[in-house]
């Protein structure tokens, strides 16, 4: 018997849902967003995001027609904003699975208010991320060469290449995340179906999407089991995806990349940036749609604690990288950290990164600041910026001055670089706004399960006896 099986009220914790919202209150609040007219703010946001998304399409089209030379990439900085953006987006895409799967397995019930939201964010972030490795190749029309498709030439992809691992890792992650998200959505979609006018298109669409959900006991049983399995399946992916992404760098011979600390460091950084992004988005949505009683200050504070933790981990990693470079005595390593990053022509990026990622989250040591919405909003934005710079620093400062000084160079982005990046933000927000508009953005069924009334027979002994009788160590799912 562990604490997490106890209902929240018995632990003396703050309730997760405030303002006395009950089942119907939650349903009204969440489903209402998709049923009522979109507020003006949504339209403004949607048009803005749509404009940026169109920019992205234009930029990508220009890039494909012109060549990678449309960007500022050069020799020796063969990768620049493209891979920076890719890693940044993948990193952002981490929080979703972490919140929905890992926290689920750890029975962190507070996750229910934010998991749908962050999972959606994950999916859209991974879509944005996937854009970059796709369009950044010189000949995008041959990108299928990276897939293990049997062909007459008998050539397979190179299984030694971390880029190929990337292809598998990110696509797996994307597939599993989407599935997980969709499975979680089924009961809520059914709710929307049930609330629609009979015979309307809305009813048909939601009806098709919820796969005939009738909320029967059997359905719930299968659903809970599937959800648990998918959670278990996604959990290692949280660690693997960014570890694999970090292998792109760690397995190379470039000083500044060739570092064993990368996998945990990247995962910590990914969670860090993912949480910051969830925070940014949630604060806005929460304010716009008045979700204060579902996404409470407690949620926000817990997330801030995670941001503080991962931010400090990342800071430790920065320090350790630097120390190892110094301690190794390897002149190339030392050069990358001491000169390229700290003092060289690109040092501004390094110091932006340090200030944003290491210094700014330290404000969360103070409870007052941790619970202050403007502070956390600003910090979350700063962390997002900082994490973008982290990737830029790792990529550009390692590449631009490597082994042979004769080939040293510098990197300057072109307008195409900048607008491609801004364009993916547009793509992301467009998808996100559509999600908010048409999909229940809070997992109604799950949130309801955290209400005190969702646990009518919460007798600890009952659970024990139940478990013993069936030889099942797992507690029965909430019914």
């Amino acid at each position: 018997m562990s604490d997490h099986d106890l209902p929240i009220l018995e632990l003396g914790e703050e309730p997760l849902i405030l303002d006395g919202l009950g089942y119907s209150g939650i349903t009204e609040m969440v489903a209402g967003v998709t049923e009522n007219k979109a507020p003006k703010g949504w339209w403004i946001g949607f048009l803005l995001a749509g404009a940026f998304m169109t920019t992205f399409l234009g930029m990508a089209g220009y890039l494909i027609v012109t060549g990678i030379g449309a960007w500022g990439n050069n020799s020796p900085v063969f990768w620049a904003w493209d891979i920076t953006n890719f890693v940044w987006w993948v990193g952002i895409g981490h929080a979703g699975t972490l919140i929905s799967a890992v926290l689920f397995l750890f029975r962190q019930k507070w996750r229910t208010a934010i998991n749908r939201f962050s999972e959606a964010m994950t999916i859209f972030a991974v879509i944005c991320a996937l854009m970059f490795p796709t369009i950044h190749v010189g000949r995008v029309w041959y990108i299928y060469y990276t897939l293990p498709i049997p062909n007459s030439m008998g050539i397979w992809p190179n299984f030694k290449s971390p880029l190929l691992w990337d292809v598998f890792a990110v696509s797996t992650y994307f597939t599993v995340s989407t599935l997980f998200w969709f499975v979680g959505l089924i009961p809520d979609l059914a709710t929307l179906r049930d609330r629609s006018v009979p015979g309307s298109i809305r009813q048909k669409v939601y009806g098709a999407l919820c796969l005939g959900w009738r909320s029967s006991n059997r359905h719930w049983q299968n659903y809970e089991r599937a959800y648990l399995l998918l959670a278990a399946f996604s959990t290692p992916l949280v660690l693997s995806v960014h570890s694999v992404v970090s292998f792109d760098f760690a397995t190379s011979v470039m000083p500044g990349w060739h570092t064993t600390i990368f996998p945990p460091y990247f995962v910590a950084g990914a969670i860090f940036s993912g949480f910051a992004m969830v925070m940014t988005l949630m604060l806005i949505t929460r304010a716009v749609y008045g979700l204060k009683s579902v996404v409470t200050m407690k949620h926000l504070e817990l997330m801030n604690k995670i941001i503080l933790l991962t931010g400090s981990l990342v800071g430790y990693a920065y320090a350790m990288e630097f120390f190892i470079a110094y301690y190794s005595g390897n002149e190339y390593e030392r050069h990358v950290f001491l000169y390229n990053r700290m003092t060289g022509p690109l040092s501004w990026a390094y110091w932006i990164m340090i200030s944003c990622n290491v210094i700014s989250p330290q404000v969360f040591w103070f409870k007052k600041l941790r619970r202050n919405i403007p502070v956390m909003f600003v910090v979350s934005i700063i962390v997002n910026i900082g994490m973008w710079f982290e990737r830029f620093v790792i990529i550009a400062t390692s590449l631009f001055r490597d082994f042979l000084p004769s080939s040293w160079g510098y990197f300057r982005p072109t307008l195409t670089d900048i607008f491609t990046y801004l364009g993916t933000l547009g793509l992301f927000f467009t998808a996100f706004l559509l999600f908010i508009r048409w999909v229940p953005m809070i997992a109604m069924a799950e949130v309801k399960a955290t209400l005190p009334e969702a646990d009518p027979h919460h007798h600890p002994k009952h659970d024990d006896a139940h478990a013993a009788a069936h030889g099942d160590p797992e507690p029965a799912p909430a019914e």
Partner: protein
Amino acid sequence: MSRRTDYTFEENTAGAPSVWRSLESKQDPQAAAERAKAEFKATAGIPLQHAPSASRDDATPAPEGEGKVGRRGFMLFTGASAVLAGCARRPLEKVLPYTKQPEHAVPGISSYYATVYESRGEALGLLVESHEGRPTKVEGNPDHPASLGASDLASQAAIWDLYDPDRSQKFAKSGTEADAADFDAAFKELAEDLRARKGAKLAILAPASQSPTFLRLRDLVKAKLPEAKLVSWSSVDDSLTRAGAKLAFEQAAQPVYALERAKVIVAVDSDLLGDDVGSLKNSRGFAQGRKLRSKADVMNRLYVVEPSLSVTGMAADHRLRLAASECEGFLVAIASELSKKHGVDLGALGQLKSGVKIPEKWVQVVAKELAQNKGKSVVSVGPRQPARVQALGHAINWALGNAEQTIQFYPAADKDATVDALADLAGLTKEMAAGGIDHLLILGQDPVYSAPSDLAFGEALTKVKHVIHLSRGFNQTSRAAEWHAPEAHPFEAWGDLRSRSGAYSIQQPLTAPLFPSKTALELLATLAGEEPKPYDLVRATFSSLNPAATAALSTTFRDKQWKLALKKGVVSEAAPRALAGLPAKLPAIAAAFEGAAPAKPIGQDNLEVTFVADARLFDGQSANNPWLLEVPDPITKLVWDNAACISPATAKTLGLVQGDMVRLAAEGAKPLEIGVFVQPGQADFTIQLTLGWGRQQVGRYGSKKGFDVHGLRTTKGYHTVSGVTLTKLAAGDIAAIADRFASLGKASEPTPILGRTGPSDPFDLDKRYRFVQTQEHGSMEGRPIAIDSTYEDYKKNDKFVQFKSPDPKVLPLWNKVDYSKGHKWGMAIDLNACLGCNACVVACQSENNVPSVGKGQVEMGREMSWLRIDRYYLGEDENNPQVAIQPVACVHCEEAPCENVCPVNATEHSPEGLNDMAYNRCIGTRYCANNCPYKVRRFNFLNYHGEDGVLPETEKMHMNPNVTVRMRGVMEKCNYCVQRIQETKIHTRNDGRAIKDGDIRTACQQACASEAIVFGDLNDPTSEVSKLHKLDRAYRLLAEIGTWPRTTYLGKIRNPNPELV
């Protein structure tokens, strides 16, 4: 790779068609010719641009457009001309020996033809690779004494000039297009008229020539038109060298160095390994004296005294920065020291006093070394030093017994060569301005651009009634001319050249002229009233070379001799001329010194400018060649520009930084506005300017690139200008210049090729000129990259490289691949031999279809050259550093970091150890390039060869058909010329023999005059490359990463004199 085709000729007896296709063609050749003409409308005698390129039957001229020569059109033309040579009774000018399809001429297999090309005043014997009649690649002719199988930058790039889309393609009269026939008729008439008037009021301006046929015809013209004024002048020449020899020996003898015999070389303002005449032979000889196999080997020592860092200066063991005008003082001090301390008899020359303060130690040490190495030393004086200084150099060499040992004298090709070409030009211009010239024939060049500014040649030209200008491009002079005639490229015209050491070579055309054109020989012959058939003219010269011997021989034998000469590329070499009577001349030389005014000391208010032929563009003749425009300067590493080089100390004194715009002004000269480039090694308060840049009208790539410095060059300040004042331009002036540049189109010349554009604004945000270098960081940062040591230290520790760049001592994670069976290709690059001349870089570019990308792209760091030459500065003194040069291309790592990161297996190892690129498979993730520690991989960021249909038709023709032309989005890099390896493997397999060492030579190796690059099979213990890999000096670049490169470097050994360190 120097397989030359063995071809046969048909007998050509006068008056009879030698080969025929049908009986009627034999009986009535004229009718057959008519029929052939009707059948091949597009060919015989009709300009090529009218040749139908789409269909063979469509005889209507192609729509107006420049140089529309499709592949088919070209093939049709060459093919048809070969056929026509057979069936029509064409004069048998055997352009290519396809009068009869030779058995071995298999389409797809290249053949090599010997020819000769003039580069930097020297005739270089070449073998040109041809694919089905299309020349694609230049190689050196090993039998030729001046090229020695190597080639230089200019001759490598010459192939592009042949296909230059902006070559003049049409005759023009007063700026409007004219027919070749009209020109012929007009010129013939004029010639008759002039002959009748004995050439009165006619002048001919031509560059000094090494061509016996040219000289023979010139003498004929002189005889027939005695009143004509003949002027030999070119903006870069060695007339002062001739003057020096004349002063010393009273004969125009030609000095040729044998540096392989020299122990001590003293170069006084002489770039004898770079810019000067004979640098190929000099480089070979110099390198031979430095290729240490072990510490027991001896090594030569090079002292260089010069104003600005040159290729020779980079190779120096000791280098003294001295203004050009002070070099005289140095040599005088040496002469005085030699005569006083070492008993060398220099007569009155030993008594001269040096007006310049030379570091005493330098004088003592150099003089001592020279005296200790009598007969094994050489003093070389550069071609821009006054005649008296050159004569003093000859005197020192003579007194030390070096003459006929390390320096040999040969009879000059042109016995009547003038020693003061500049005065002749000045005289001509004066006469022109005075209206004394009615007809001016200008053969080649662009004197309106390159003549000294005080002569106002362009203005004088307007006073001449009839100007006839023959040139490869329609340039500023052509614009002012009444008649412009396109000049044939040397690769498409008959001619001949004599090397400095007297070797006679026939300039064999490799293709029929691409456009209607003329040669100087034809025009001179017409003037002299000869039949202007270049083939006959050259053949006549050939026969006249030794008339007594050949007259006695049968025609058959003479023919055989001619064919042999064509095949071999070299006929005979003259014997060196023995010198006599120098001691008698010593007082005369000394007298020349007495008259000289002492130079005013160089200083802040008396800056000295020196002019030098640009290391890439030379005098600007090939200024439209993107290969030359983009190959980095060997010293500054600048591309697409020239600059005013000043030393760091001078920059500091004058408050200048790199890119600052300055105005240089001198008395009597036009002020020059130019960007400053801070160049270590430049003598303080001196400025080096390079000629050949800033041409206004040369073509789509070269026009308005760089700065035209000729305005500052006057007849008084021709090689050096003293008393130059420098003003830093303020932002306002620069705005005006920027406007002017913009109106000129200098800022960015939009070209069809996306890449080849300049940056949009020539100035950066600080209003500094945007110089673009391929290498901006000149320090090795203390890393073991271009590893060097001194000779003394090497003798103590011959394993020095092993300490600096040790091989990794770690257990492998996986089994190493076994390469011990079959071939194991490898390369060795001797840093002691490499001089940084760039010939290999352009050779690689030519062989491997590497594009030039333009200034803007290089600025972004996207140059494509597979082979680059890294240049590092060493030492504490930034004003006078030592230089390390290191050619870097793909080193073909056995454990290649690029290979395991490619997700699609586009770069893989071959069983012979080559790191291959499969372009078709490459999707362009660029991961391989990121992971390459040597950064030798090049990515096609844009379509550098142009989108479809954008690249001019002729420009495509230089492409090597054996190498893929890469599209955008694909990674590329050096592959050890895999196409050559495969070709040789096929040939040897067909011949049923094994590949011998030396059968395969990579393009870079082939071009290298100093034989610094050696390629071969490491599994063959007798191969040169295996031996080099085992030398104690051999090391692997960045060995500690564990990449196990196949290219090893041989550490550089410097040989400083311990007394001078």
